[in-house]
């Protein structure tokens, strides 16, 4: 049985494929050093088209309209440029209402692609472009510490880590955020107050790393312009000790926060990367691992949500309090307690 691995690593090689959602133009070069906000590819994801019906506007046949067209496919047209005409006694003209490029003409019509602001794909992490993916993006690699979360609001930033949460169980209030945190990526604890989000944006912070967050805050957090990452889950969670220690001991270090949503079928997990020089012996972390004794696991469901421990033994099929039967393992929690949990309710940490 193989299980997905969530990474909390003080030193690792990190390689990420960064791709456009649709084909576009790759701007990065192989070997290029990039920063978090550097644009590595762009695409006109949402091109806008304008259909100019010359024949209908001039009340002439499509064939006649085609004969008086003043543009052809590929032409760049400025606003008010003549598209068709002149025709008739009054020398009527059709002018382009917008700037654009002619992509289709015929049947008395002209189709313009309106120039729009392209979608820009950011590097999302500092590092080196180790490979290019034609028309799509690039593969970026860096060394450093890596902490992965469970939810993010899709934003990307770079800044120095500041620790507001003085313990893993800390609950943040809006009043705790002051100007001393301005411009930082703040390790803020558990959040159940939407005012915290509002204040963080007003200051502004560069990003928020929560242990847990009340799920009702999701709409507000999603609208925020700064990145928000939830490391443990929705509800009152403390930071797991490994993540807290790793982030707290890196206070003041610059970090990249990539709060991309972990979409159902994508590999993207929200994560914090602290770039560090790593020895060449350090390799890429495993993404899946066989479930075995002595591995560190994080428990995902009540009554041990968010707790971490070490797998002791496979227990076979077990009946739980709810009456449900499932394949289970015994886990020794950090507090020394041994508990039995379904295999489905844990993920490995490495």
């Amino acid at each position, binding site marked *: 049985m193989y299980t997905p691995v969530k990474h909390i690593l003080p030193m690792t090689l990190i390689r990420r494929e960064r791709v456009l959602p649709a084909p576009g133009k790759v701007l990065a070069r192989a070997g290029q050093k990039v920063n978090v906000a550097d644009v590595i590819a762009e695409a006109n994801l949402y091109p806008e088209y304008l259909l100019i019906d010359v024949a209908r506007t001039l009340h002439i046949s499509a064939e006649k309209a085609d004969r008086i067209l003043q543009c052809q496919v590929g032409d760049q047209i400025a606003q008010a440029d003549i598209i068709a005409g002149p025709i008739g006694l009054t020398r009527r003209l059709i002018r382009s209402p917008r700037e654009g490029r002619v992509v289709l003409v015929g049947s008395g019509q002209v189709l313009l692609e309106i120039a729009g602001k392209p979608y820009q794909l950011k590097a999302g992490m500092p590092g080196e472009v180790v490979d290019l993916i034609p028309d799509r993006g690039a593969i970026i690699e860096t060394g450093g510490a890596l902490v992965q979360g469970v939810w993010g609001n899709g934003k990307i930033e770079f800044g120095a880590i500041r620790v507001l949460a003085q313990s893993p169980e800390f609950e943040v209030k809006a009043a705790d955020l002051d100007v001393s945190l301005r411009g930082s990526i703040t390790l803020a604890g558990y959040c159940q107050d939407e005012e915290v989000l509002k204040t963080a944006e007003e200051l502004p912070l560069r990003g928020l790393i929560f242990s847990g967050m009340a799920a009702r805050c999701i709409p507000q957090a999603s609208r925020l312009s700064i990145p928000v990452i939830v490391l443990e889950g929705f509800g009152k969670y403390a930071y797991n000790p490994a993540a807290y220690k790793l982030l707290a001991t890196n206070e003041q270090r610059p970090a990249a926060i990539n709060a991309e949503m972990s979409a159902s079928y994508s590999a993207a997990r929200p994560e914090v990367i602290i770039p560090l020089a790593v020895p060449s012996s350090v390799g890429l972390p495993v993404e899946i691992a066989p479930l075995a004794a002595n591995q560190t696991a994080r428990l995902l469901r009540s009554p041990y*949500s968010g707790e971490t421990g070490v797998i002791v033994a496979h227990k076979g099929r077990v009946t739980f309090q709810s009456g*449900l039967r499932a394949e289970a393992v015994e886990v020794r929690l950090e507090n020394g307690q041994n508990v039995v949990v379904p295999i489905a309710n844990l993920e490995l940490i490495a």
Partner: protein
Amino acid sequence: MTSRVDAESLLAVDVGSVTTRAVLFDVVEGRYRFIANGSAPTTAGAPYHDISEGVRLALDQLQAITGRILIGSDQQLIMPALPDGSGVDSFVATISAGEPVKVIAIGLLESISTESARRLALTTYSKVVEAFNLNDRRRTDTRLNAVVRLRPDLIVAAGGTENGASQSVVRMLEAVGLAGYLRPHSQRLEVLYVGNQAIHDELQNTFRDLVNLHFAPNVRPDLDVEQLDPAHAALARLAGEIRSQQIPGVAELNLWANGGLIPSATAFGRVIRFLGKELAASKGVLGVDVGASATTLAWGKNGDLSLRVFTQLGLGRSMAEFLHQVQLRDIQRWLAIEVSEDQLTNYIYSKALYPATLPVTDEEMAIEQAITRQILAAAANRFFAEEAAYGALKDGSSQQFDAIVVAGSVFTRAPNLAQATLMLLDGLQPSGVTTLVLDLNQIMPALGAAAAINPLLVVQVLESSSFLHLGTVIAPSSRARMGSPVLRLKMTYESGHETHLEVKQGALEVLPLPIGQTARLHLHPLHRADVGMGAPGRGGGLKVVGGALGVIIDARGRPFVPPADRNRRQELFRKWQWTLGGQ
């Protein structure tokens, strides 16, 4: 009914969004039987991004259970079976994993052909992201921009009765043609046209160089007639192809299945259609499958089928979307324990993050089952409202069925059958006389897919004991006051022994009748209660067969609304569970 068969084994794989199942059928003593199933987590998502690993693990487990070698040293399925007993003779596959197929529905009239195109799209795992019709007054380029922006996986276009409109259909498809022109050849739009069949050639001539055009029978051959079923087969095939392109490993699975990969919901619907026809059921057979990716409702009657897939009503990743469709208090009303809105919201979003996780505490099990009740209620309400308005089976349905066949882990893994049954009764609220059947081994998709190549297998497995008969439900519908008698019944067992019972409004009662036994039931409704015998107050006799829970009389009222007071709810929920044999 069926005779002995030539030995031919069949292996079916169903790739769900959370679990992949491999199911083996073979001939035992001259008849097809379900042998065993193996399961493994689906590996469509991170970190595998290829369903093959999950399929392999499910097959490994099946091999371990049966001792039968299915995969050769070349990692290919051994087919046909070899004399040494390894391999299988045939293979079928179904899939429900993957994001819903993004569909734009196009038609001429909003409430006629456009609605039928939309309803057709919703017979598979899809999400209708936009709809165009003649009345929406948008310019062609506005529609074009919508197609470009939304990047649909599929366009379903209807319009024109048989030999009816043609030019308006071409006009409606103009934006799609333009979008097709703008796309690279490798990303051509898939378009399924299910309108006027007389203009197929014209459409082919106009659009074949721009889009991948597929045709299926007209869903609106007449203004008053909607026929989704014939077009559904083409849609199912297309949905399978789209999945093959989107998820690595699906194409190979489809190859194993000889190109016959179909959506799990299609397979589920086939079995329900068969049962509806086979049982000559006057009220039809309702199929309900509550899965992680979607809830599927299928209603089969006299060979007709109405099918609807609710991708926003699943117990997995779509749960967060479900929150936008219901009020939290609608879920809380099914809870006998104190669960705040915050707790409930946190639970739902957490489950959406980790759909494969399991409820191991009493509290989480109660929440999961309360959500299931509300999912069933939401799905049934929408399904029957649309059926009454548009469906092929419209007949002023009052949610009466001859049988309800239920699938889904939330039922099969329920701690006891009482809990599974109460979820069904509370969520679906059937009235009249209904038989409840549970797909205990989760083989419905496998059977539906098998039906295409081996119908005899399906018949014989359905006749076997692979499905669990939960019991017969008698649900009088009445406006009588709480505590007033609404039904007198007499049950005569095979032994000649008689049991008499008077049931009061608000009660839930059980008469034991073990599996394998039959009894004669005489119903005498009171206070004009409707027990499904044709009219309110009308009674009569009927034969009932035994089930795991016996004969259940659910006189809690229709609609049944649980008590507003939590303490009272707790008391009644415990009592009802106890009555049905739960703890």
